[in-house]
């Protein structure tokens, strides 16, 4: 959708997908695009960072090692608070998810780069993965008893035909709301930055200062949003996981 709107230097042209290595896989377009490039870059950066941070494991951590330990503690506390000690089994999944989304968001904040998370197909794939994993864990732990999630306690029986479909819909809509939240935040933020940067070009000289100041301040806000959305994506994953692991409703 960005390709139609973009073309030149419109605010949507930054979301354009460029094919670097065209590749056709059984009739599907599996080209290596700029989105793939940034995802590979993010994984390489994360791996390099944690490998470097953990190379000289010291009792008194150095700078890199304390950053790595802080991010570990941050997510470990989140999992313990929201899922309990049972949930620590799934810590590697949650941690990878958080670091991956955070690094993709932050890479997008560097001017001229491509923001992978501003494409709904990427965030939807991540959210669908979360949804499938959580549902699989729920059925693996509780068997068919997991379906009791849709039947809340203490609801009179005559309300059930109303409550059960509502619970079912609110469960099934999770991957959509999870993906749309991340995608719309990143996309709206980047579009807005581009629109105000465009004002700085088109306004007369004496008025240029206002959009420049606004864009600078808004870039700071976008860094907060980039972190916050990665955090929220992870917290909501933890909450969904809590439903599957503990089934408290």
């Amino acid at each position, binding site marked *: 959708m960005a390709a139609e709107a973009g073309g030149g230097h419109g605010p949507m042209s930054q979301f354009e997908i460029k094919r670097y290595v065209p590749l056709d896989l059984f009739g599907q377009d599996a080209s290596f695009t700029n989105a793939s490039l940034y995802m590979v870059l993010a994984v390489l950066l994360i791996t390099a960072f944690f490998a470097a941070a953990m190379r000289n494991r010291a009792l008194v951590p150095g700078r890199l090692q304390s950053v790595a330990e802080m991010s570990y503690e941050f997510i470990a506390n989140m999992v313990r608070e929201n899922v309990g000690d049972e949930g620590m089994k799934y810590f590697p999944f949650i941690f990878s998810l958080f670091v991956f989304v955070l690094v993709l968001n932050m890479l997008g904040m560097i001017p001229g780069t491509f923001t992978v998370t501003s494409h709904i197909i990427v965030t939807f794939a991540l959210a669908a993965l979360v949804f499938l994993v959580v549902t699989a864990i729920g059925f693996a732990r509780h068997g068919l008893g997991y379906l009791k999630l849709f039947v809340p306690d203490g609801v009179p029986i005559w309300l059930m035909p109303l409550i059960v479909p509502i619970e079912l819909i609110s469960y099934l809509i999770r991957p959509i709301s999870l993906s*749309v939240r991340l995608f719309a935040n990143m996309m709206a933020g980047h579009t807005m930055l581009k629109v105000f940067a465009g004002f700085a070009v088109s306004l007369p000289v004496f008025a240029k200062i206002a959009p420049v100041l606004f864009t600078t301040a808004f870039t700071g806000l976008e860094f907060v949003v980039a972190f916050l959305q990665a955090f929220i994506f992870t917290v909501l994953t933890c909450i969904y996981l809590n439903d599957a692991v503990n089934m408290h409703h």
Partner: protein
Amino acid sequence: MDPQAAKYIGAGLACFALIGAGIGIGNIFGNYLSGALRNPSAAPGQFTNLLIGFALAEATGLFGLLVALIILFG
């Protein structure tokens, strides 16, 4: 009416969903702040809940924004 004009009006109308998101987010942060001023020692423990409420309120408005984007570029 020109279909193109109707499209733009529709996209503008879809953005009204963000009014609700604005009210919701304002409510959440306002209530958090008034609660935090009454009992500052309990405030840090509720920060995660604050962000979750913020995210849930924001999502409903973003659905409207998404509809507007689909109308414009879809």
